[in-house]
């Protein structure tokens, strides 16, 4: 265990030092995207990995976070940091509204219901004039400052903000894993009826896990809106994004603390690099490569890459 902590400290130290050593914008951008998806993957892992409820609607929380921030900033000039909090509030509300009926469904039924919810959200935002409809929202260009959450000359501040979000998400996931909540969630995943017979309030703990997942994903949405400064429905709420979050967790290891981190470090460079190197001629090849990886992993190693790294040392 002690070795694990040392590895973690070296890893986070390297992440923090990286942009100071390498000044190129592209690797910084790549790591920002990796950390963004790792944080969202951690969020998905709490509901999908620990609790075993496969949500294909998590992109909705990302969209709600991004849109809450953008609408408040554009229409009322409210700081994105407050927008972040408002986004979290709405995301939790959405998680509760969606979760209350959906969590009575099991397995595939739940998964398909979350697809439906995600698609409804996408359609609502695509047709909602106030939220920019299909065109989306351009953020106003404000002077660079922390309070405005906008930095134009360098990606460095964004890098450290997402690093903090990523580490915080990891910390929350660690707390969940160690807490009573985490044990309940895993009990629900392994044997729902058994957990119920032991007096665990299934609905309640699924809802808590879903809300935590929603908050983490929503914060990532706010970050994305401020990083890219332009959002539209398909860039923030597409079904494919929800699927990618599941894939990241599957690649790394479902229900494992570092699973989504490993998954994001493998998945994001793979898709970004195939896209860069193959260009428009190779459009679709990135999808083919990672779909084969998913199929192979799901058939032969459903525990993910984490299980390969830790084979022999942990159970």
């Amino acid at each position, binding site marked *: 265990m002690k070795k694990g902590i040392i590895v973690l400290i070296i890893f986070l130290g390297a992440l923090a030092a990286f942009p100071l050593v390498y000044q190129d914008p592209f690797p910084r951008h790549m790591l920002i995207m990796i950390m963004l998806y790792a944080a969202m993957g951690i969020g998905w892992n709490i509901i999908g990995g620990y609790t075993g409820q496969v949500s294909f609607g998590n992109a909705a929380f990302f969209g709600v976070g991004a849109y809450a921030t953008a609408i408040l900033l554009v229409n009322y000039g409210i700081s994105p940091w407050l927008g972040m909090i408002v986004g979290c509030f709405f995301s939790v509300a959405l998680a509760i509204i969606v979760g209350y009926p959906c969590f009575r469904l099991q397995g595939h039924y739940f998964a*398909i219901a979350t697809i*439906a919810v995600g698609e409804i959200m996408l359609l609502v935002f695509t047709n909602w004039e106030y939220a920019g409809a299909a065109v989306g929202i351009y953020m106003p260009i404000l002077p660079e400052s922390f309070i405005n959450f906008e930095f134009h000359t360098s990606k460095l501040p964004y890098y450290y903000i997402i690093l903090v979000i990523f580490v915080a998400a990891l910390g929350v996931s660690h707390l969940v894993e160690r807490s009573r909540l985490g044990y309940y969630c895993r009990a629900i995943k392994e044997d729902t009826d058994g957990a119920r017979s032991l007096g665990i309030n299934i609905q309640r703990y699924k809802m808590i896990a879903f809300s935590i997942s929603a908050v983490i994903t929503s914060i990532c949405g706010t970050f994305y809106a401020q990083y890219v400064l332009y959002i539209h429905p398909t860039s923030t709420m597409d079904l494919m994004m929800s699927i990618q979050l599941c894939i990241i967790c599957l690649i790394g290891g479902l229900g494992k603390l570092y699973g989504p981190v490993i998954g994001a470090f493998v998945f994001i460079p793979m898709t970004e690099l195939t896209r860069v190197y193959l260009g428009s001629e190779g459009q679709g090849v990135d*999808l083919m490569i990672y779909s084969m990886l998913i199929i192979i992993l799901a058939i032969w190693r459903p525990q993910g890459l984490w299980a390969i790294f830790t084979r022999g040392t942990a159970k």
Partner: protein
Amino acid sequence: MEGLFIQTLVSGLLIGFLYALIAVGLTMIFGMMDIVNFAHGDYLMVAMYFSFWCFALFGMDPLYSLPAVTLLLFGLGILTYYLLIKPIINAPMLSQIFVTFGVLIFLRGLATFLWKVDYRMIPQTVLSGNIHLGDVYIGIPQLTAAAGAIICNGLVLWFLKKTRLGMALEAVAEDKEAARLMGINSDRMFALAWGIGIATVGVAGALLTSFYYVFPEVGANFGLIAFVVVALGGFGSVTGAFAAGIIVGLVEVLSGFLIGPQFKFMFVLVLYLGVVFIRPQGLLGKK
């Protein structure tokens, strides 16, 4: 206004039959082995591309290439079963979801790579044209597709209920162990279910190509509609899928007509959620 309303109802009914045909394979496979094929809509896409290329390369009308498409998709279904589904038949649900999702992403990636994201359509088929009934125009391709869907769904139902092979299939769905003791090879039955399930979506794709665009993402919406139809009708129920297909078709066109075409799909999804929250097993599903 009244004529337009009837026109809307008719087109909803016609597309509803086709939805039922797209969904029937999905519900059959689910009913037999509790596996949801998330790539179902993308097999439809493969069938549509096949029909399209038969036309573009050999000048073969989608109606004439239909038998070939059906056979191809039948083979593809069996191949999918032996290659990908058999290894995960007893795996946790998550593995099953990810494998079929992997197939979905793979097929879309392959289509994007080979044929780019362009929308393609066959300009003129042997079916092009309209029938004129009073104020109502009915497209011949749509009418043919609906008729084909009814025939094909009828055949599936007849096969399952009246033939020995079909009954063997249902026996495996009912109780794998007992069926094995009766000398039924469940493995072959599963393969057959995949073959037929994917072949029906091949028929639907061939019929659809006469009047719809082909593009790599075409399976996304039709696939989602197929899930809605299956969940609405009840997982595993062929007659349920038939009824639900018509309901979905009608809800879609009516909400498009009364509220606005951009919302038609939303109402289908809302209807679906409403039904599964009240009756999780669907309209005609078994608990």
